[in-house]
């Protein structure tokens, strides 16, 4: 295999993964965007006068970056995990396993597809949100950086979940017992400074908190934790999960008997 062949192989797998979610765009994009917009409408209406966040930032504006990042992360996870579990259950994963695609090509294609879907959903929510509130964007590169690494981290976690799960209910357990609690306890709807000390400490163990906090800094220039620290912690999580994923793919864990 030369470089051109390997590039084309990776590109083909990426294109297939992108087309896969695009074919069911109502389920993969429209549904999470509508969910996020409903969260925005309801929570901003109910909590606007009850939750104290940053100075000079109104609650609706505060809510939007958190909702964007939460949806981005959930959809990045959903993309790689659902593609893999479907392919495994239906048996069509063999079409990839029979080819000269390396474990690294496999990882890159699934990773990029997850980031693209997450960022696409996030962008749609952002555009919708502009209808409701004027949102500043003080540090666009920080927003971009957290979107990439957050999408990458959850896309990688999705690959692990997809490979590990043998059935749809096992995958649902990942969604319901890991992704959802981590999303909702990450400071999407509040600043952790408003929490009692114990819950503040607990929140600091949640990687979602750092992704959302750093992402929010990109918009307002304010955060609970220094953005560089958040980025370092998220990068460390990514390196650990990527190493585990590459190890699983290289050994053929649950893919090659």
């Amino acid at each position: 295999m030369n470089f051109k062949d390997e590039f084309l192989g990776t590109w083909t797998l990426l294109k297939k993964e992108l087309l896969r979610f695009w074919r069911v765009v109502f389920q993969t994009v429209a549904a999470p965007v509508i969910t996020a917009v409903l969260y925005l409408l309801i929570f901003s209406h109910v909590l606007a006068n009850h939750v104290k966040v940053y100075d000079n930032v109104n609650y609706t504006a505060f809510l939007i970056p958190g909702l964007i990042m939460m949806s981005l992360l959930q959809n990045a996870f959903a993309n790689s995990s659902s593609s893999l579990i479907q392919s495994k259950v239906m048996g069509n994963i063999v079409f990839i396993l029979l080819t000269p695609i390396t474990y690294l090509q496999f990882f890159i294609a699934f990773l990029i597809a997850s980031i693209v879907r997450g960022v696409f959903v996030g962008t749609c929510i952002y555009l919708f949100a502009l209808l409701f509130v004027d949102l500043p964007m003080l540090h666009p590169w920080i927003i971009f950086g957290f979107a990439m690494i957050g999408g990458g981290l959850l896309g990688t976690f999705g690959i692990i979940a997809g490979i590990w799960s043998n059935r749809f209910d096992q995958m649902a357990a990942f969604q319901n017992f890991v992704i959802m609690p981590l999303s909702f306890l990450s400071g999407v709807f509040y600043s952790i400074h408003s929490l009692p000390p114990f819950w503040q400490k607990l929140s600091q163990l949640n990687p979602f908190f750092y992704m959302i906090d750093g992402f929010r800094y990109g918009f307002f220039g304010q955060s609970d934790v220094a953005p560089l620290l958040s980025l370092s912690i998220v990068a460390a999580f990514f390196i650990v999960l990527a190493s585990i994923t590459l190890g699983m793919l290289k050994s053929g864990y649950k893919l090659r008997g």
Partner: protein
Amino acid sequence: MKKAIVFNKVKKNFGKLEALKGIDLTIDEGEFFALLGPNGAGKSTLINILAGLMKSTSGSVKVMGHDVTSDYQNARRSLGIVPQELVFDPFFNVREMLRFQAGYFGKGRENDDWIDEVIEGLDLQDKANTNMRMLSGGMKRRALIAQALVHKPPVIVLDEPTAGVDVELRKKLWQFIKKLNQKGHTIVLTTHYLEEAETLCSRVAMMDQGKVVALDKTRNLLKRFSAKNLNLRLDLKGKKIPASIQRLIQKTDQNFITFLLKEIVEVEFIIGELKKSKIAILDMELTNSDLENVFLKLTGSKK
């Protein structure tokens, strides 16, 4: 002659179960080869190790000189596998699937003419833009074969390709596969339809309980185990077949009882014994032994 596939002392254990007990097998380039055996013989395990879908416990496998583990990329480029199960990706149509499959092997738009040729050869023109979900079982089987061919592999392995396929389609598939073999592709076939192996394949390996129990040219195997079958339709009317000839019975179905003959003189003996027991013969035919007989003799199993 160059070797297309070499299995060297391949063993596979699943816990305490020895699924493959040291398979040594070489298939030459250009051969039309059959791998036969009952369920659980180890055929699919062997194919999965060849395809890289499973790892052997010990031993090595090479495809066109490339080791399936250490040089897996070149080994897989040389190999087209048609899986046994009717698997498909429900998101795409036939042509999209074929383009994706070619792309995984590093083949782009320059390969489209070959994809058209494969589509035509397998009579899939009308279904090329149809979603895989909407295809009938037979059409899905053709699409699977097309997928295995898109990167022009020199070695093609078909794992039970005609299971559940109607007679007409089966004929068409074999015509297409035969053409590929004539063009120089090595074909390896696993099948339950022994008559297919008998008519198509120049050489046969028979597997049983993880071992190769026979390996020879098809005609040599048939000659080596030459025997004749005497098929009789009898008017039993509640009578029993005499014990003296019961040992010769190979199989019984609704209409015929088949006796396996080592020597032709046994015909006289069987008819004599039936006469003695006053069992009338309604119909009779004498046929040559086939691979099924050979297989039953080798594995010592009865239908």
